[in-house]
């Protein structure tokens, strides 16, 4: 079994799940410190990304899950 491919599969599915469940988490991990986090929303709260960006992150998350499942199948020799 190729353990690197298996690791890619597990981490890919994990990251994809995070992106689907909490898209704002990855967005903030990239934007905080680059732009003021409180610039986009109401005062005293984190700016909420708009629904289009949220959807895009979820689509990327779904793609990561699918890619992870593919690499999982490759790692165990099913493909």
């Amino acid at each position, binding site marked *: 079994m*190729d353990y*690197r*491919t298996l*690791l*890619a599969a597990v*981490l*890919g599915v*994990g*990251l994809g799940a*995070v992106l689907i*469940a*909490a898209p*704002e*988490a*990855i967005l*903030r*991990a*990239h934007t*905080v*410190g*680059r*732009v*003021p*986090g*409180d*610039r986009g*929303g*109401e*005062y*005293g*709260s*984190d700016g*909420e990304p*708009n*629904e289009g960006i*949220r959807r895009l992150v979820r689509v990327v998350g779904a793609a*990561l899950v699918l*890619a992870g499942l593919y*690499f999982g199948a*490759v790692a165990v020799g099913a493909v």
Partner: protein
Amino acid sequence: MRHPSLTARMAVVGSILFAFYAVAAVVAMGAFGAPLWLVLVGSVLFVGVQYKVGKWAAIRSVGAEDMPEGQYQEIHRQVEALSEEMGIDKPRFMIARMGVPNAFAVGRKGAGTVVVSRELLATLDADEVEGVLAHELAHIANRDVVMMVLGQGIASIVAIVAQWAVLLTGDNEIADFFLAIVVGQLVQMLVMLFVMAISRYREYVADSDAAGAIGSGETLARALEKISRGNERAGESAVDEQVNALCIFGEERGLARLFATHPPMEKRIERLRS
């Protein structure tokens, strides 16, 4: 203003970030044969560019313009008095139409900028605006913006190095490229977890400094309450998809909460009044 609890927290988080950075620097030196001075200069340049571009982009993205002193005499007077009280130079003061009541600070001590929205000035009373201004000035006085840029810079550097380390140790197969991207993102998120945690605490500290500068936390608490209530009303009355989405996801839980830069509004109000 001195904050022993913030200093202690910064020591812990700073050590963790330094450890991440040190590992990344050693890996970069080992993998690319780069001398230490090049790694250090490259890191400083990377963070410096992020700081400059971030400040410029933040002001430009909301279309902020300088707040005319003649038209907003009272606010300028408040900012001057608060800046003196906090021991900082009066920052550049700007106004913008943001669509919501908001204010933010960018820059550093001595070269700071505070932007307030016209909607904020229209929503709040003069003393509540003073509370908000004091909070933003406290961010500049405490170098919070610089700390966040530094934290993001370290997270990005560590993530890039992790990504390259995975790539260079692989067999150039498609799975290696995939693994490198995923590891880079996960490392970025891991490092930012610590940065976000300290950011939330820094909000409490800025609230406390604002309360100290104006003599009470009540006005800022009232301002937060008023904005929060206005937000809730907007959520109840509007029916479009965008607002519905905010209602579903607005209350942050779990992971989203771990990645929040601000503590929950009700906790801040409670602390300001305690």
